[in-house]
């Protein structure tokens, strides 16, 4: 199955309808996500970051591309790998890093770590759970709510290639098609599930072609081209918004790093990895594109780099200053009625009546 990229080369509008400002914002996001990913890994290796990291490096084209196609009021149901999509959707990096360091100002108030994060009332993202792909059926429910109320809103869910072999994936796609729900299914096909390659996950050549089994459009897109991912996602999102039902998008990249911080990923063939890192880097590629079309110049790029660095440092400082949650409150916030989540975190790591 050919990817959509082949088709768009013929298209006239290289910028797929996006203003200079939005294009620059996408460049910022791509670079921010890349930088956060690199810095977290470095800190992890230095033993300065507790818990786990799940690098999304090399897949920023997918993450920034699909999440950029959503409006603020749309919802996003991602997995462990999709921090970049959550950042794109609007997570506050300060609170993200506070979460990585287990602090009270993290989105889960220290109850969970790393990319098991979410911000329902702000960025409208699901607080990630490990069990794959557990958020897929939940996205059906959110989409059902939009449809029921006639709201022009869309739910988007992301999972990995490996998660498509799980029964929940089938159930969710099936139900979304039966009820014609306003939902967009994204599969971040980074070619591996941990060490398991695509061939051991599904028997077809592509994941996109499986959309036929759900009577919905299936699109395969090459994630080195963030604008192409955006275009495809935007089309799917707007179709869903207008009542056209669900779409399955398979966005293909390669996982540049191991599954998690400890995994050297020796099972990925060296040549494949080099090919992707050298020739299919979605960040570099997009930067070159904007330079070539003079949407940015070298000074603007340097400015973006500077902004990214500053944002990270500020967030890092914020996270380090944020207190740990107090142990005494460990049983609170289980039941809604105890009011834990309606109170604000205090500077001592507890919560106080607001």
């Amino acid at each position: 199955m050919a990817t959509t990229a082949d088709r768009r080369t013929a298209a006239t509008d290289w910028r797929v309808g996006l203003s200079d400002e939005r294009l620059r914002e996408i460049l910022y996001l791509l670079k921010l996500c890349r930088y956060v990913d690199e810095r977290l890994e470095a800190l992890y290796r230095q033993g300065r970051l507790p818990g786990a990291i799940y690098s999304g490096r090399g897949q920023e084209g997918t993450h920034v591309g699909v999440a950029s196609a959503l409006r603020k009021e749309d919802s996003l149901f991602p997995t462990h790998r999709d921090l970049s999509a959550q950042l794109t959707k609007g997570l506050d990096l300060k609170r993200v890093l506070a979460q990585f360091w287990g602090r009270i100002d993290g989105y889960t108030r220290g109850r969970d770590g790393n990319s098991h994060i979410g911000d329902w009332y702000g960025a409208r993202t699901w607080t990630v759970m490990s069990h794959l792909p557990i958020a897929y059926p939940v996205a059906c429910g959110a989409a059902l709510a939009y449809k029921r109320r006639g709201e022009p809103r869309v739910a988007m869910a992301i999972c990995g290639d490996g998660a498509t072999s799980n029964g929940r994936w089938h159930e969710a796609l099936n139900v979304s098609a039966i009820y014609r729900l306003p939902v967009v299914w994204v599969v971040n096909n980074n070619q591996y599930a941990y060490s398991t390659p695509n061939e051991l996950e599904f028997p077809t050549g592509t994941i996109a072609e499986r959309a036929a089994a759900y009577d919905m459009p299936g699109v395969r897109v090459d994630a080195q081209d963030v604008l192409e991912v955006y275009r495809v996602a935007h089309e799917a999102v707007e179709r869903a918004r207008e009542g056209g039902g669900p779409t399955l998008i398979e966005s293909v990249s390669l996982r540049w790093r191991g599954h998690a911080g400890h995994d050297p990923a020796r099972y990925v063939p060296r040549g494949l990895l080099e090919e992707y890192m050298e020739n299919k880097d979605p960040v570099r590629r997009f930067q070159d594109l904007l330079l070539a079309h003079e949407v940015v110049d070298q000074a603007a790029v340097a400015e973006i780099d500077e902004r990214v660095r500053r944002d990270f440092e500020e967030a890092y400082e914020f996270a380090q200053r944020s207190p740990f949650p107090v142990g005494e409150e460990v049983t609170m916030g289980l039941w809604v009625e105890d009011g834990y989540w309606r109170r604000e975190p205090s500077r001592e790591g507890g919560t106080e009546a607001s």
Partner: protein
Amino acid sequence: MSARTLEAGAAGHGAEPRGKRTEAGEATYLIAIAEALWEEMERDERVFLLGEDIGVYGGAFKVTEGFLERFGPERVMDTPIAEETITGMAIGAAMEGFRPVAEFQYADFMSSGFDMITTALGRYHYRSGVPLPVVLRGPSGGGVRASSFHSFNPEPWFAHSPGLKVICPAFPTDAKGLLKSAIRDDNPVIFLEHKWIYRRIKEVVPEDPDFLVPIGKARVVREGSDVSIVTYGMLVHWALEAAEQLEGRGISVEIVDLRTIQPLDTETVLRSVEKTSRVLVLYESHRFLGVGAEVAAQIAEGAFEHLDAPVMRLAPPNVPIPFSPTLEDAYLPQVPDIVAAVERLAAW
């Protein structure tokens, strides 16, 4: 009764559940449950139902008969056989402000949605602060010759799993009042209806649409002074029968109906044990790590100084529920078994 409810009754032309009470105004447990659903749907349009065969068919046990006609297919949704996704949809809709009530055709099939129930539904709020007002209801329990896959008591699994309230009512009034409380509760609730009780037990059930029974409160359904029986669900009725027989033998039995399993009303249980000093914990879920294991452990710890006899448990063994009458009767604690256990305790 509010004008709204009257109107709904009128609209239903007797098809609505209240029209199915007896002449004397009594409702079965099943009808009481249907009334609870109906009233809460009338009261709050965020409440909707989803599940297998609940619409056109009115549910495998006919709890939702007449609902499709009254509330339409958007609020009475027939779903595919996909319990993970039924639960997932309920979660997603709840996140967006709805108050879904999902029916499991049998509580046995809650195991087919287990991950979504225990991992997603139970653990989401604690980590995110997002309330999930979801009720999962289904017919549970044995005693009706329905064998292994239509008689299960899943309450121990869920009562152990954080973040889920678990309710097992024994009487029509409690069923109605607790289900209404469950629907109005902002937390996920597993609501287990005992299918042996569905059509067997009737009583005059309050009609006030704001009648509620609080979650987390046990009830002393029979006062007594010699031995306490702590139980819930179908076995409340069997214990009542045993208590009658024991009365004749001069043993006064107090019966505590737990009603809610999670959170458990430890206080009411301990108060009864403090009074009688002897306790039989009677339960229908498998013995090993069934509900009564927790109850017995709490009594052993909390009422130690008051006990004149060991905390005794009576419950089915940990084997699948068998079909044959001889086997199912041997599996479930029978009234004579209850009588014998209480006699042993009384004689301690």
